[in-house]
């Protein structure tokens, strides 16, 4: 399960950001028990495999989740979510770029 010396792959980078997106959405939308079914629905809607997301998949999911938050929680929470997701997607772009330049 744990492999500290494992080389980081692009897939690892995508999964790490995906993990953070899901956690943040749950935090802003009433916790895991309530928010996780909503997340699952979006993955089904866009036919995204959560174990192998592409960068484009994550952009689609983020956009859809923000729309859900707008409807559920209103502008203020959606704005905060948009800010956090933007940071995460920027981190994703940076990390992928850094990874590609190393390999």
């Amino acid at each position: 399960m744990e492999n500290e010396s494992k080389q980081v792959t692009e897939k690892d980078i995508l999964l790490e950001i995906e993990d953070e997106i899901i956690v943040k959405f749950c935090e802003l939308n009433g916790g895991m028990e309530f928010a996780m079914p909503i997340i699952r629905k979006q993955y089904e809607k866009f036919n995204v495999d959560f174990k192998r997301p592409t960068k484009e998949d994550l952009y689609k999911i983020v956009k859809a989740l923000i729309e859900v938050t707008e409807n559920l929680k209103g502008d203020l929470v959606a704005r905060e979510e948009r800010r956090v997701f933007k940071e995460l997607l920027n981190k994703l772009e940076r990390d992928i770029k850094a990874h590609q330049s190393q390999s």
Partner: protein
Amino acid sequence: MGEPFNVKVKICLVGDSAVGKTSLIRRYVMDIFDDKYISTLGTKVSKKRLKLKKKDLDIDLTLSIWDVLGQEGFKGIQGMAFKGARGAMLVCDLTREETLKNITSWADRIKKIAGDIPFVLLANKSDLTSQYKFNESDLESYSSNLNTSFFMTSAKFGDNVLKAFYKLGDLVTTELLNEIMNN
């Protein structure tokens, strides 16, 4: 006769992916089994009521059973799911030795977040006898190190599934009652 004592607790099922966590819950909660494997995205929560008798008290226990994805690379989701758990089932797969070796790491991770909660160790897929990669004495050794009971379960046929959930429910209730008595 007194009113039953209502208790609600959260328990988590943890272990590597594809060990049968979702199937064990489906067997316990709905008494069904499906061979088709679908990885759990994040977490899924099921509820089940259990009646117990403890220290002359009738306990009506509602288990909030959290199925937590075992996939690598989702430490944030797993950590969030472990918060507030009062007990955990550590699940491994009798046909894959590494799933038993990883049990200690799962136990450590959940302890870090939920504290020193009761565990039970489940070695699932006991129906696949010809494919066993470890045996009862290996399980004894792991369960003794973790100070837990162990069960060899089959989500497919239901063997020991009720017993394992009952055992964890019992351990969790005992802890809770002890806490109440001591406060």
